[in-house]
């Protein structure tokens, strides 16, 4: 029989450990959501790990990507990109809407599609 009931020394240590690791993960999540997001000017589109396109987000275009279960429509616009339609059941990728910041991504796990935004910079090469 435990003298102190549930809260023995071991339990307290355990609670502290769980609490601190929770705070750590929470802090990382908070930092990720609050950090400065700069505008992206390039998007990398990959399907099942294979890079299909690397586009600059400076024009309007609709890209049709054939996938396992149908076609995925990606809408490219100036400074932003979105998945317009997808044959996946959850439609989570479509609901995410337009992404326009560096580091953001749209993932359709069902089809294996991954769109990552980045900023090519400090712009090191310019074409004139």
């Amino acid at each position, binding site marked *: 029989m435990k003298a102190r009931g549930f809260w023995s*020394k071991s339990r307290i240590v355990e609670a502290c450990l769980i609490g601190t690791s929770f705070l750590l993960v929470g802090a990382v999540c908070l930092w990720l959501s609050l950090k*400065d997001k700069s505008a992206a000017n390039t998007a990398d589109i990959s399907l099942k790990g294979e890079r299909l396109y690397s586009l600059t987000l400076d024009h309007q275009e609709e890209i049709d990507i054939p996938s396992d279960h149908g076609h995925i429509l990606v809408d490219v616009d100036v400074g932003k990109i979105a998945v317009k339609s997808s044959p996946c059941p959850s439609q989570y990728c479509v609901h995410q809407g337009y992404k326009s910041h560096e580091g953001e991504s749209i993932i359709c796990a069902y089809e294996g599609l991954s769109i990552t935004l980045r900023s090519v910079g400090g712009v090191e090469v310019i074409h004139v």
Partner: protein
Amino acid sequence: MCLSKSLLLALSTIALSLGLFSCSHNVHHSDMVYAYGTFWEVHLYEGKDEDLDEICDYIAETSRVLDLEASSVEDGLYALNHLGQVNAHPFLIDALSLALEMEKLTHGAFSYTVGDLTASWLDALGHGVLLEEEIVVDLLQKSRQTSIKIENESVIKTGEATIDLGALGKGLCLKKIKAKLDQKGFTKYLINAGTSSILFGENTSKSGETRVEIDDAPGRYFYAKNGALSVSSNSRQSYIIDEWTYSHIIDPRDGYPANNVDAVLLYGDDAAKLDALSTAYFVLGEEYASELEDMGYHVAMCKGGKVIYESAGFLE
């Protein structure tokens, strides 16, 4: 004892989180603005988001001042063109003063009154035809008969032609932005106005230089840092009729599209003058290129995919 260990762990977590929050290396604020008829890319490698916003707001504001169709701007170019007299916005005064100066400096190759002529030419070329001679003569005459007078804050226009400052608007805006950035002590930035006018500060690489590759002369490039670049080029916009290339830049001296070179690149310290000069010397051609060097600028002129004139030590 276990308690103190947990406490230590908790404190280090808090310290780590605080550290993560205040982490600020690799700062890069960037945004895109549509202004002066093109997309601007503004990159600021220091400062805060507010500084970036300030620059973008300034670009948008000045763009509206020089916008030929911004009827709601009471002290802008639209008002001047339609009312003939206006208490002008400071930016407009500066733009017009610069235009007058450039007209004198470039043997008349720069003009701020060829807006109608340019628009008519672009319309005709867009339909695959040349503009009729009568129209050219008529518009040219109107252009020559149009002038402006600046008295303190007031500007008076005489004549029928439309005043168009598109040839130096971007450059002037960049010059003003540079002054603002200098005031704030910022040195790391890059502002690219549709690749025809670019303001270089330092970038985040070790050397701080940005490599500029010239599409009109493939394989040729140079390194830019703390300077301004202006490009006037046929590759932006040109028309080919009967195997002859017609550029979008009209020679104000005879009213016809300039045809001497395919591209002019000017690199120096004054973004505003460079913008106007690149347009003017696109019209003047290779013959007069050395004058630009006398003014203290680096110049490169391209034709047929090759560089036909370049300042010593400018390109690689």
